[in-house]
């Protein structure tokens, strides 16, 4: 602890102990506790208490005082726990009878303050902190604290109840950790008293008819099997599994969600290796749960690395069943291949979906979401029924947009339930996008594109649905490249692309900014991938898309302008923005894309489009855009000049990124650790001086926004490492004049604007670079700008300073 904090501590403790001095807000106490945690983690708590007796006095005061505010009492309880986490300090506090007082009957437990949830929470957190060693365990067993924790499991506060459950798990783990060392799975009668007590309590709860008690026990067990990895957990399961099995057989099953969580937690632990019967229990549970309840269990089983194949098939069928129902409901001659047909020996009949709309929608959405998460996993079921899944998803989407005409009664009912249902549309489009990772029969792929087009064209599609439809379409287009990764598209995708672009034209004129934005994002992506492909170019150039995109640079919505900038950047990179010209109608001279984007950079009132311009420019410079390549130095100079004046720190950071790309073009890539030959360095330095990169970089070094200064520091460090290798002697007799540069640096450091540097000699720059302690600057910049205000010393000062003025300045934030 630094001396200033040590000096302020007694006064602070006195303030905290005084009920007439309310503490500014609970964040101060939280931060104070954070600081004490850090201090005790770094050194001896006992020593701390001995050096600062005011702390023990504060704790004693908390024990005795009747009128302490709940938040201060809660703080004292947690603080005591932090100190008592170290065994010698625990014993010290124990001798003083402080701990039994604070955490036993004489303390807040029996006082009126106990009604405040913050006090109960503080009591639990205090115990959680101190429960770290055998002495603490004995204390917990003898003080009756464990019984209080049992009762707090049913606390009206979610936070307190949950913390109580977690504390029980922690105590159980701590108790079992000691004797289990070197021994395998001790029997229940061998368990320590504390552990036996907790397990007995859990058994009682599991036998109880009161649903909340059952749920509490299940939560504790789920956390135990999820977090504790000792072999004793196997013994625990042997002990408790018959009770869990009884719960699973009850009708109706109590707390089915929590039981599912427990079974999955056990299945992920080391238990299955010792109890193969677990799989039988899981399989039976799958059949007993309703389809909605069984979904999470089935998905969890399929994510397990190791489990019996029969169970995997059963679980997969649970997830597939709702989709199979959809297929069956939509079945028309010739019948679509069913989803569950391949499951040999599967006794499950294709049942109907739930009759109520909300249940049916919920079941479909969760099945689609589970399958979406499962698809990319290596342990996903194999064979993966790609074709029927595609068919089912397309069918669902058709039911949702009303384009399906089911002949069966079940199909009609389903159609009525799903039509216009945005929730199902979103889930189905997400899943459809993921399905693009697999192949499908040509006929189905055609249907996929057809349904996606229907959604993209439909005036009924909500902006969110459209966004998802765009994303799914892009994924399908990418997967249709032949061979993968190549520019050529399959003929069907090729055909769709034309229609897509025609649709896009309309979408870019939508009155809804979200739609225009999603459209532009889509255009940027498709151009990035197929901008070089002849047929795409032809369709695109024949459309009004390039012109529309240009116009959207003036969109009233800044997000859209930014997306238009990205789209223009991409179109221009592929030469797709040139105004069409013909002998009869010569092209009207238009500003070039570079000019248009520069105008945005210098005039747009919003930061978002300007940042987008900088990203495009950086990409153009990196990839050698034609317009940039004409005169890269002039381009860089112009962009840096604009970026340097920009009020948005991210534009300035982007400016430095562009400068870095320029530097790499001249000196080679970063990280190569190669020092550039002198001739290259000289040429590079001349170019850098010419584009006034140093003016920009040095000013940025003292920028009031830290990321800018940090980026500049990185840039200059790279330059110094490449251009002036360490130990390289400065050429004798040729000392450059660095005075003007150093004077400017001093001015900028002091926050003054000052005059520009003007013409600079490369040698002077190098000399300044050598003399600067950039490493030290980098370390300083790594601290946050409010590190002084956030320091413990500042916190203590603030807490002391608010004494007496609090009443006037009430917390009326906003």
């Amino acid at each position, binding site marked *: 602890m630094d001396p200033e904090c040590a000096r302020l501590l007694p006064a602070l403790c006195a303030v905290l102990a005084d009920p007439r001095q309310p503490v500014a807000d609970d964040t101060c106490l939280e931060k104070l506790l954070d600081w004490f945690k850090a201090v005790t983690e770094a050194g001896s708590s006992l020593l701390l208490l001995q050096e600062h007796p005011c702390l023990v006095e504060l704790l004693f005061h908390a024990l005795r005082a009747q009128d302490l505010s709940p938040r201060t009492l809660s703080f004292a309880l947690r603080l005591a726990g932090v100190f008592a986490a170290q065994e010698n300090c625990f014993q010290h506090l124990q001798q003083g009878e402080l701990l039994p007082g604070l955490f036993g009957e004489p303390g807040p437990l029996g006082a009126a303050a106990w009604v405040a949830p913050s006090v109960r929470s503080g009591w639990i957190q205090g115990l959680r902190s101190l429960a770290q060693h055998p002495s603490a365990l004995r204390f917990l067993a003898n003080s009756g604290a464990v019984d209080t924790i049992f009762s707090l499991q049913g606390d009206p506060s979610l936070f307190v109840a949950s913390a109580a459950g977690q504390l029980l798990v922690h105590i159980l783990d701590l108790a079992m950790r000691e004797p289990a060392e070197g021994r395998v799975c001790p029997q229940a009668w061998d368990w320590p008293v504390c552990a036996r007590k907790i397990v007995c309590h859990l058994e009682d709860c599991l036998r109880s008819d009161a649903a909340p008690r059952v749920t509490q026990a299940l939560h504790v067990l789920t956390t135990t099997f999820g977090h504790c990895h000792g072999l004793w957990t196997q013994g625990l399961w042997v002990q408790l599994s018959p009770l869990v099995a009884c719960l699973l057989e009850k009708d109706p099953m109590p707390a089915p969600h929590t039981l599912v969580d427990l079974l999955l937690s056990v299945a992920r632990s080391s238990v299955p290796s010792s109890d193969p019967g677990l799989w039988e229990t899981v399989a039976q549970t799958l059949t007993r749960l309703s389809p909605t309840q069984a979904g999470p269990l089935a998905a969890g089983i399929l994510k397990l690395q190791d489990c019996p194949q029969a169970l995997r098939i059963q679980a997969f069928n649970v997830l597939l069943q709702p989709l199979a129902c959809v297929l069956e409901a939509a079945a028309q001659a010739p019948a679509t291949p069913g989803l569950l047909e391949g499951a040999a020996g599967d006794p499950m009949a294709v049942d109907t979906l739930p009759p109520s709309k909300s249940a049916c929608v919920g079941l479909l959405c969760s099945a689609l979401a589970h399958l979406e998460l499962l698809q990319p996993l290596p342990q996903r079921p194999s064979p993966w029924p790609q074709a029927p899944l595609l068919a089912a998803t397309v069918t669902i989407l058709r039911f949702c947009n009303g384009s399906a005409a089911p002949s069966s009664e079940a199909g009609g009912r389903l159609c009525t339930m799903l039509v216009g249902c945005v929730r199902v549309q979103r889930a189905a489009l997400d899943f459809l996008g993921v399905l693009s990772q697999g192949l499908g029969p040509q006929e189905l792929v055609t249907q996929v594109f057809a349904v996606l087009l229907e959604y993209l064209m439909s005036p009924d599609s909500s902006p969110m649905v459209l966004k998802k439809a765009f994303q799914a379409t892009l994924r399908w287009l990418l997967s249709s490249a032949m061979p993968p990764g190549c520019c050529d598209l399959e003929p069907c995708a090729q055909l769709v692309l034309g229609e897509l672009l025609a649709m896009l034209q309309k979408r870019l004129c939508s009155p809804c900014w979200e739609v225009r934005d999603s459209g532009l994002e889509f255009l940027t992506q498709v151009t990035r991938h197929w901008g070089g492909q002849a047929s795409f170019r032809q369709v695109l150039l024949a459309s009004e898309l390039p012109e529309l995109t240009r116009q959207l640079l003036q969109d009233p919505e800044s997000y859209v302008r930014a997306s238009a900038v990205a789209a223009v950047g991409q179109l221009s990179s592929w030469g797709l923005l040139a105004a069409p010209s013909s002998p009869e109608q010569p092209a009207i001279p238009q500003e070039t894309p570079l000019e248009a984007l520069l105008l945005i950079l210098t005039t747009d009132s919003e930061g978002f489009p300007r940042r987008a311009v900088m990203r495009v420019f950086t990409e153009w410079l990196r990839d050698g855009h034609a317009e940039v390549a004409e005169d890269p130095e002039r381009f860089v100079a112009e962009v840096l000049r604009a970026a340097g004046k920009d009020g948005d720190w991210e534009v300035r950071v982007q400016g430095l990124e562009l400068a870095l790309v320029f530097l790499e073009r001249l000196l080679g890539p970063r990280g190569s650790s190669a020092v550039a030959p002198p001739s290259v360095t000289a040429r590079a330095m001349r170019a850098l001086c010419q584009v006034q990169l140093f003016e920009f970089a040095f000013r940025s070094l003292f920028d009031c926004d830290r990321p800018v200064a940090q980026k500049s520091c990185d840039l200059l460090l790279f330059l110094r490492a490449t251009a002036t290798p360490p130990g390289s002697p400065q050429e004798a007799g040729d000392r450059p004049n660095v005075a003007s540069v150093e004077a400017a640096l001093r001015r900028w450091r002091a926050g003054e604007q000052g005059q520009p540097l003007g013409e600079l000699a490369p040698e002077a720059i190098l000399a300044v670079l050598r003399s600067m302690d950039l490493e030290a600057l980098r370390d300083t910049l790594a601290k946050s*700008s409010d590190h002084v205000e956030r320091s413990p010393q500042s916190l203590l000062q603030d807490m002391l300073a608010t004494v007496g003025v609090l009443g006037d300045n009430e917390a009326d934030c906003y």
Partner: protein
Amino acid sequence: MPEIRVTPLGAGQDVGRSCILVSIAGKNVMLDCGMHMGFSDDRRFPDFSYITRSGRLTDFLDCVIISHFHLDHCGALPYFSEMVGYDGPIYMTQPTQAICPILLEDYRKIAVDKKGEANFFTSQMIKDCMKKVVAVHLHQTVQVDDELEIKAYYAGHVLGAAMFQIKVGSESVVYTGDYNMTPDRHLGAAWIDKCRPNLLITESTYATTIRDSKRCRERDFLKKVHETVERGGKVLIPVFALGRAQELCILLETFWERMDLKAPIYFSTGLTEKANHYYKLFIPWTNQKIRKTFVQRNMFEFKHIKAFDRAFADSPGPMVIMPGYCVQGTVGHKILSGQRKLEMEGRQVLEVKMQVEYMSFSAHADAKGIMQLVGQAEPENVLLVHGEAKKMEFLKQKIEQEFRVSCYMPANGETVTLPTSPSIPVGISLGLLKREMAQGLLPDAKKPRLLHGTLIMKDSNFRLVSSEQALKELGLAEHQLRFTCRVHLHDTRKEQEMAMRVYSHLKSVLKDHCVQHLPDGSVTVESILVQAAAHSEDPGTKVLLVSWTYQDEELGSYLTSLLKKGLPQAS
């Protein structure tokens, strides 16, 4: 048992990080998704793990509603939607939708730029989050799905702030967000109709305060500014709450014009400037005065107030700082708490020579305003959030006493459960309705009347149909229920003779009814059947078996009592 459940994850007995979960008729709604400005770690956002425990967020939550753009109500939104993974709809008013990203960007700038935080939400995430927003108009009923609907009401407080009514069937909850019951210089007062919700969730920042006259506060403020300027000093007003900046700008602008002052006024070029653009745009959301005059002059087009540029900064002079509330860990907090020496970066120490004043201009309803709103909405229950526990306790008692309704004030993580009696919609068959109409009575909502029919529950729907239709639909045969009664009469004559006497007696008494003597010896009166039989043990006693249907219960009872009196002697 149907119930409404409310669990605050934030704003439960505290101010900051508003986030309240409401379950109503099986629908789950999150009200606000705010951040706590006092923390820079995980604690700044609500602990969403309590929701994710219930399965996938998007499956669990039906929608998120944001009451207004202040960060303690929307600051966690991009984190929640783009990092925690909520993919469902987010509802807010149009001005909130427009201004929210500006504040979120600013918050990101502070976190990433000033505090150097990694893993913070990005600008792209803010945009993607805003694309999930569905804008709502005032008083427009928006269907979230077939059952859940929401409606926004004007809340004052800041531009675009709204109170929301959440309704499923006949059950409803109103959430006020932050509101102001007194109009200010640019906004009107909050208003809600007598919607009588099951529950009103109201903010209670000023639960115990009756605020002094706003005029006095404004006069004090202007006096202090004017005096300092007259002395040649400068006034710095770091107003971090967007909306208050605009209010003070209008106040200063009007004063400058009235007093013909020349001293320049500047506002910072960041947030306020950007937000001003939207204030000029959303004039319909302002108060009547601004709406009336905006054609001649938009009040947000300031004449005297210009955008600030760093170049304007010159030699230091006397200064008065009047910030709003400042959280610990900021220079503002230090100055406000009266610290006169401030340590800056690089161990540099600055002396505070200026005069410091604290003046609250926050636009929350005071205790009187809260009571007024409760009176307006007439809720069945009230729940207090966004306030301090002690003050809430006072207001709770006051509300319970005055309105005779239950008032709750859960802490964060505590759940309040309210039982409700939902009304279940029942469809009526056309046939039954026509039959009722044929009786000549037109349906009248104000005059409920009895209607006989059979209630059928099929496919989760309830329908009231005629009993004949019910039998037909359910494929059931009709059974008749008959009441039977035995009447013992002392008579030695034979059964046939006895029956004949009964017939004659009834025929003479019941002249308006159809009395028949059937060939089998029994007598009928409408549906009532009377049969005579000999007593098994006493030949001198005859037993009359009387039976009737439930429709003729009245007549049946009358007839039985008549027969019990005995038959007249034969003449």
